[in-house]
Each structure stands twice: as C-alpha cells, then as structure tokens.
C-alpha cells in the first residue's frame, strides 16, 4: 500500500459571481500520509472549507491535480465519485447536516443504504456499533431536535464512521461546541486516528489544532506554512486534568 493517501498539486478553485471572480484557492500543493492527523487553520475566508470539500469529493477544483489513494479523481465519473464518498470517505459538517425528524440510528444507517453489499441486518448492527463508539448507545431512537449540539455532532461522526472509511474529513467539527465537548470530540478523533484512520479537520482554535500531528495554515487561498505539532495534546489527559467545576466557574464568570 502506498504511504501517501492525498496528493494535490496546483489546486485552484474560482467562484464566479456575476462579473467578479473569487479565487478561493490559488494553487495548493499538499500531500498527506496514511494515518496522519492534520489540522487545517487559517483566517476566515482563506479557503479551508473549499479545500476540504474538494478533498471530500463534494466539489470539483477549477484546476489542478488531486490524487486520492493513488486514483486521479479527475478521471472519475459522478457515479464513481459517489461510490468513493460512500466507501472510502467520511465527512463531518460544521452544521451536522442530519436528516430532520429521523432517529439517530436511521441517520447513521443512511450511508449503508447506498452500499448494496450491506444487508439490512448488518446495516443496523453497524449503525448501532458506530453509535456505541461515539457514546450514544442510549440515544439511538432520539430525533436530532431531541439532542444537544454535541450529541448531534457525535451522531454525525458516527455516520461518517459507519462505512469504515479510510479517511475522515471534518469541517470545524467543534465550531459550535463548548470546551469540554470539543475535547470529547477530539478524544474520539484521536481514538479513531490511533486505529489507523487518516483524519483532516478544520479549526479556528489553536488549542484544538494541538491535538493533531501536523498543522497546515492557509492564507488567501494559499498555504502559508506547515509545521509538525511539537507539544501534542492528548484529549484523554486533558479531560482528566479538567475538573468539571473549573469549567463551570470559568463559563459563569
């Protein structure tokens, strides 16, 4: 198996709005190895989401190469891209994007419906396992509007896990969550990463970026700098050293 899972070169994305052209990405070169845990940082509007969407095959670049797991995605048809998203990728959105009025279990099952190899019994078992993995076994039959933001995000993560992807992409997964819940989500990601999954996530918070192994910083549609994380944080330890009272005090101040 090749070591590199993502390789992009000269990646560009332009948006045309009337007369104006927005250059969201202006020539990105980046490669990510299998098993890496990468945090993407940068100012608002610098192109982080745009790149992550392209990495997740949700959007197509205007120009440039993107090799995913040794496959040039430019050669793939729409249906083949859908298959790729279904079987190799898991995407976590900042806005969760759960189906409303649909239970957590059914939401998590959804990707497996589009995989005809998975029979209905297996589908349910795998969905339950994914929900257990994110600690929501007791909330299986709750609707999204009966869950807190953090719980909804965990359902979304369970959904991204259920197809056993090689890579998980998360766009500001902790953007709407408080500190403790953010750390819990990071703990989940670190667990998954330890078990071999490549994870790329976008964040604004320097603290959250320190849970990764490598940081990539964007600026105006270009990569400003890349660096390995020197003092890496481990969510398990951080949570242990984070007394519940402290957070409450901090937040009521």
């Amino acid at each position, binding site marked *: 198996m090749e070591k590199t899972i993502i390789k992009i070169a000269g990646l560009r994305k332009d948006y045309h709005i009337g007369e104006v052209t927005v250059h969201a990405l202006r020539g990105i070169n980046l490669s990510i190895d299998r098993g890496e845990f990468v945090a993407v940082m940068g100012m608002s509007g610098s192109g982080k989401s745009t790149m992550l*969407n392209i990495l997740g095959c949700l*959007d197509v670049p205007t120009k440039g190469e993107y090799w995913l797991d040794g496959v040039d995605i430019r050669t793939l048809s729409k*249906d083949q891209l*859908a*298959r790729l*998203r279904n079987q190799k990728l898991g*995407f976590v959105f900042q806005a969760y994007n759960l*189906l409303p*009025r649909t239970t957590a279990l059914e939401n998590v099952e959804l990707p497996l419906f589009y995989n005809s190899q998975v029979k209905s019994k297996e589908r349910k078992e795998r969905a339950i396992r994914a929900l257990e993995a994110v600690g929501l076994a007791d909330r299986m039959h709750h609707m999204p509007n009966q869950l807190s933001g953090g719980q909804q995000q965990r359902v979304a993560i369970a959904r991204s896990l259920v*197809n056993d992807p090689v890579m998980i992409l998360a766009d500001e997964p902790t953007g709407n969550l408080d500190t403790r819940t953010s750390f819990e989500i990071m703990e989940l990601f670190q667990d998954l990463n330890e078990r071999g999954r490549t994870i790329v996530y976008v964040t604004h918070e320097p603290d959250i970026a320190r849970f990764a192994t490598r940081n990539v910083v964007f600026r105006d549609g270009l990569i400003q700098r890349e660096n390995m994380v020197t003092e890496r944080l481990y969510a398990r330890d951080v949570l242990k050293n984070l007394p519940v009272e402290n957070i409450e005090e901090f937040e009521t101040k």
Partner: protein
Amino acid sequence: MNFSNLIKIAVRALVRNRLRAVLTMLGIIIGVASVIAMLALGEGSKRSMRQEMSNMGTNMIMVMPNFMRRGGVSLGSSSSMALKMSDVEAIRNEAVNVAAVSPEVRASGQIIYGNQNAQSTIYGASEEYMEIRKLNIKTGRVFTSQEVKSMAKVCLVGQTVIENLFGEGVDPVGFNIRITNIPFLIIGTLEEKGESGMGQDQDDLIVAPYTTVQRRLAAIDYINGIYASATSEEKSPEAITEIEEILRRTHKLNDSDENDFRIMSQSELMSTMTSITDIMTYLLGAIAGISLLVGGIGIMNIMFVSVTERTREIGLRMSIGGRGKDILRQFLVESIILSILGGLLGIILGYLIAKGAGSLMDTPAYVQSKAVILAFIVCFIIGVFFGWYPARKAASLNPIDALRYE
C-alpha cells in the same frame, strides 16, 4: 442500491414528511374525485334522458302549427289554427308509412271532485293516441271510436290527478268529476310515467275524446297538433316527407310558401337532447378539469415549497454516497406511491360523490371506466412529474451546492 432499500428509503422519507405527503395526496384525491363525479353525473343524465326518449316511442312524429316565421315575427293567431281535423284524415288515408295518427286538442281547466279541486291539462285525442304516445292503461279502458264520434263525456286520468283529487292508491274508475263544470265519467287510469328529462310531470294529465274537448271545453274548430307514428323507426324520415307533402297540399301552399306547420320526430328530438346533454357533460368536464388543475397546482405548490429542504436532503444523500440516479429513483418512487394512493382514494371518493349527488338530484350517476382511467392517468402524470422535476434539478448539482441551497 437495491429495490427493497429504495422502497424503504422512499417510505421513510414520506413518513418523515407526513403532512406534505398528505397535502400532496389531497391534491390528487380532489382532482381524481371531481373528474370522476362530474363525468359520472353528466353521463348518467345523458343515459336516463336517452332511456326516457325511447320510452316515449322512437318512431313518434309530431306536427305543430308554425307560430314563428321569418325572423321570429309571429304572424298572429291565424297560424295557430292551421291544423284541422281534415289534415288528420288525409294523413290517415294517404300516408303509407304512417301506422297510426291522432289529433291533439289541449285545454286546461279546473277539475273538481266533491270538495277537492285541481288544475290540469286535458288532452283531446282519438283512441290511437294512447299507442302513439306510449301511454298505458293501468285500470279501466280506453274510450272507443264510437265514444269519440258521439262526443262522450268520458276521460282517462293520470296518477298526479288521482293523487290530487282522490288521494293516493284510490282507483277512481266509475267516478264522476267536473272539468270546468262539465261532468265527465272516469273510465280508466294511466300508468305512472314519472318526471320527464326536463323536469316535467308526465302524470299530470287527463285524456278525453278530441271531439268532446274541442267542442265542450276549448270551443274551437281547429286542432293543436297531430301525433303520428311511423311504421318503423327506419321509415320515420319517409313518413315525415309524406306528411309534409300531404299537409302542403291540404293547406294549399304554393311552391314559394313556407310551411305553416312544423314537423318534429322523436329521433330528431333525441339527437337535440343528446347534444344538449353532451354540452352539459363537456361543461361538467370543464369544471372537473379546472379542479384537476387546481389540484395539480396544489401539488406543484407543495413540491416547490419543500424544494429547499429537499435539496438539502439531496445534497446530504449525495455527500454520503447517493448517486444521482439513486436520488431520482427515490423521488420517483415517492411520487408514484403518493399518486397511486391518492388516485385510488380519489376514485373511491369520486364514486361515492357521484352516487350521493346522483341520488340527491334524482339522476342516476354512471361511472364510466373511461373517466376513471382518464382522471387517474392525468393525476398520476401531474403527481409524478412534480415530484420528480425538482429532484432532477437538485440531483444534477454538486453535493456541496445542493447542501448549501437556500
């Protein structure tokens, strides 16, 4: 995606959006039901009209004086006196395609029995009249030619007259009544005929010898009309030509003169009636079409209102691996389920409405399978199209654009 997954996904989506599903279905139900009900009523009244017409005898020919001539200007009372008893005799003697002929003299007046009184029309006729107009005797007998000749004061009464004067169920044969103060003996009663297609009571009548009515009641020497029957329905046109020739001769009309009489035949009347009911059916059909359209617009409305939410749903489904065709199939199955369910409920409802309204209006509704199929197909197409069309647009977007749609 396999078929059972497809069905499961579609059903889940419908259940999740119950209200929308019900509202969409309502549009289809209303559309189908109204088309079926309207067409059933139209067809029902057409059929009952036709039935009634043939009950009246399909080879009947009527001759009336021509009141209106040249641009609708009435030429005065003289023209209403155009028909004479001698015309009847001429037809009887000369027309080979005429089986029976009778004059008709009408008078209306007060009928008195004891302290009861009623208003009715007295038809003066010869004994052949009964057979020509398909009037049947219920009890008693018809007057004889002898009684006609002798101006006998005898009569036959219809069921409405019996009800008004004697009460329901009474057999008044042998009773004496007074018609405009002249005593008449009831010698027979007529079978019930019911209402005519135009809502006229066909049982409110008295039949008496024309001689009696002409002299004693109406005091005239002409007749109001001639009733004849052709030897067969096919001979009807020839009989009409014959009658026309005879009357033109007896009326001494020059070649340039217009007829001073009008000949109508039952088959002619029938085609007029049929075209009237046809117009009615088209009218009802148009109303039904409008409600179908309204139903369709309702469906469209609901579909387009929900397009934002559904586009996001489509974006999500695509982002987790749904292919464009998976999405389209889901939407197609959803709308097929709704259309079939709505269509079936609409058919049932339409049938019930047709029966209910039919019995209220006293015209039996007739549900044609043609109408059912038409209504169903139209609604099916509307339902499926408007379910599928917005989905097709959304499924062609990039997943991320569909997710961001607003």
